[in-house]
């Protein structure tokens, strides 16, 4: 029972979590395939991926609900594949929160302390202190159903953190909240996580959440790791076409590699930025990613954009979606073989007159066109 609380053979250099070649198949279909990564103590890692990417299976293996089919997991340097969940030093915040409806908020937070054999005398003090950290001081006596959605989130977070586990796992606990509250809780959890310095692994399909909350983002697709990088790097330097397309609103254009770091795009020669790999031999077909916010748009015939644009083309607006702080245009471009480019304009008030059918100029800087060999 006390195995989890016993001092562990700590290797100071070891990562808090190490996942080494872990895989799991269901009915012969690999859900998680040869995944390896480490998380250093106190870091916040987000596993980001679409549904079916294997991110939840991976999290459940770390939690101990699913045994890995292959590979090994280490928490605090100790292999844990054979350790049941209740003996792992983890706290988990569940998708549906999984609070105990028959207990009060304080009793919920006290539960792990009781289960883990803390002295009865010190439990109320720890519970009260933890409730203060999540800004629920004085609400401990409330039943769960007497609390608002945001308050329930805080109870779930307090319950998972109160016994100072080595590792906290978040299974999309914020997904069910409305957008405003969700964004508030993202920052709030980040604050608590940094205050307590607890190592955290978060799972989400929400790229914004991943970028906002994490020190590192692990992008997964079809059971495999696509990229492990800082949010900044995952956004600016995607490792492959999948990551480029999954994070942000991205256009893909087919191009052919030329000599001298240039490409041919729809019959015209232009420069390009740095991809994850050096440009292949001339004549190789490439997929070029171009983020929607890197494409500039202006009504035809107006003065040139303040930024020097390396490529400028004429287009016709097909769709306009005004989103308040930005406007998303779909622009048909004849010079690109009638491809439809998605364009995000950050200063909507500048071009309010643009309606479907309007003739526009679009353009981008060469370095924003990121080439990926096929």
């Amino acid at each position, binding site marked *: 029972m006390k195995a989890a609380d016993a001092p562990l053979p700590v290797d100071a250099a070891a990562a808090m979590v190490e996942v080494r070649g872990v895989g799991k198949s269901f009915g012969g279909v690999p859900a998680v395939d040869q995944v390896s990564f480490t998380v250093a103590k106190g870091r916040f890692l987000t596993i980001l991926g679409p549904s079916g990417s294997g991110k939840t299976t991976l999290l459940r293996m770390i939690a101990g609900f699913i045994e890995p089919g292959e590979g090994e997991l280490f928490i605090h340097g100790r292999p844990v594949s054979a350790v049941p*969940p209740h003996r792992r030093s983890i706290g988990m915040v569940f998708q*549906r929160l*999984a609070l*105990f409806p028959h207990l009060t908020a304080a009793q919920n937070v006290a*539960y792990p302390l009781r289960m883990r054999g803390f002295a009865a005398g010190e439990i109320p003090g720890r519970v009260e202190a933890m409730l203060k950290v999540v800004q629920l001081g004085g609400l401990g006596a409330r039943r769960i159903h007497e609390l608002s959605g945001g308050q329930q989130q805080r109870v779930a977070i307090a319950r998972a953190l109160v016994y100072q586990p080595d590792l906290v796992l978040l299974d999309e606990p914020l997904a069910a909240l409305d957008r405003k509250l969700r964004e508030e809780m993202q920052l709030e959890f980040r604050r608590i996580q940094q205050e307590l310095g607890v190592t955290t692994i978060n799972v989400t399909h929400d790229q914004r959440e991943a970028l906002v909350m994490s020190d590192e983002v692990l992008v997964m697709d079809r059971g495999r790791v696509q990229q492990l990088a800082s949010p900044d790097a995952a956004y600016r330097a995607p490792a492959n076409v999948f990551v480029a397309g999954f994070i942000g609103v991205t256009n893909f254009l087919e191009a052919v590699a030329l000599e001298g770091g240039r490409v041919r795009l729809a019959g015209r020669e232009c420069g390009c930025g740095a991809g994850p790999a050096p440009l292949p031999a001339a004549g190789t077909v490439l997929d070029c990613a171009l983020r929607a916010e890197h494409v500039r748009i202006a009504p035809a015939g107006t003065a040139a954009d303040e930024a020097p644009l390396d490529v400028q083309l004429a287009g016709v607006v097909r769709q306009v979606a005004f989103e308040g702080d930005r406007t998303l245009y779909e622009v048909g471009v004849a010079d690109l073989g009638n491809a439809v480019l998605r364009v995000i304009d950050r200063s909507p008030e500048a071009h309010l007159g643009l309606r479907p059918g309007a003739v526009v100029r679009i353009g981008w800087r060469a370095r924003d066109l990121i080439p990926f060999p096929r």
Partner: protein
Amino acid sequence: MIRVLDFLESLRATLWPRAARRFEAAAFLLPALLLVGVLVLGLAWMADASLRLLDTETFELSEHWTLANYRDLLENDTAWIVLGRSVLGAAVVTAVTLALAFPYAWVMVRTGSAWLRKLLLVSLFLPFFIGQVVRAYGWLIVLGKEGLVNQLLGALGMGPFKMIYTYGSVLFGLVQYMLPFAVLLIAPAVTAIDEEVELASETLGAPWWRTFLEVTLPLARPGLVAAAMVVFTLALTDYAMPVILGGGTNDFVANMVYDAFFRTSDSGMGSAVAIALVAAATLLAGVLLTWLGAGTLGFRGEAKR
């Protein structure tokens, strides 16, 4: 078609004006109220009869009211033994049935195999098609002196054992009879428990048995309370099992009522015993309800989150 419906609608509007609509809900209650009313009338009739003493010469009930039947009952040691046996039996049957029904309901709800769930459901409903009396006779055949079990044991060189016409056989028969009711009342409560809550308990450091005691059982309480109420009252007032599997040696209160009415033709005494039984059962049910709440029998199931 539409026209016919329109016509019916306008006909209804004249025959059943809008003002009468607010009584509609009440009108739906009428059949049920009638049934309950008949029951109350019967009880009133029995209460009346219980206050009249049987004249053993004419075999007619006295004209005037007297508490003689109740006094006799209070002074009758056998009556107290039968009441004690019934209450104790009902309590034991309730405890054993719940202990068996909970795992059954849990597996039935939680199993990942649709095949196993169907099997458990069908096995649960099968006895319903057979009826209590036939089932009791079935147990006579299986457990009797020359019955299946004794034959098997005999082949192994053991027995024969006396298994029927004992208190144990009555309780056994009752448990077997009550099991489906209990499972059906517990299953919804188990369904209402989010499995994630049990997983959460595990990650928080609880081994499975503590999760069961601290989370699963308290959350299933509404179902357990409902099942306990139903099983207890049904067992306390049961007639067939004590008669058939007890063979007159282990009577419950209902058998006493029968004997008074149809053996000694003392409808006064029979009514007094019946009223006493209703009073005892109501009292015990009332105590249970106040103590534990109505469980899933009430409208505010605690399993709701």
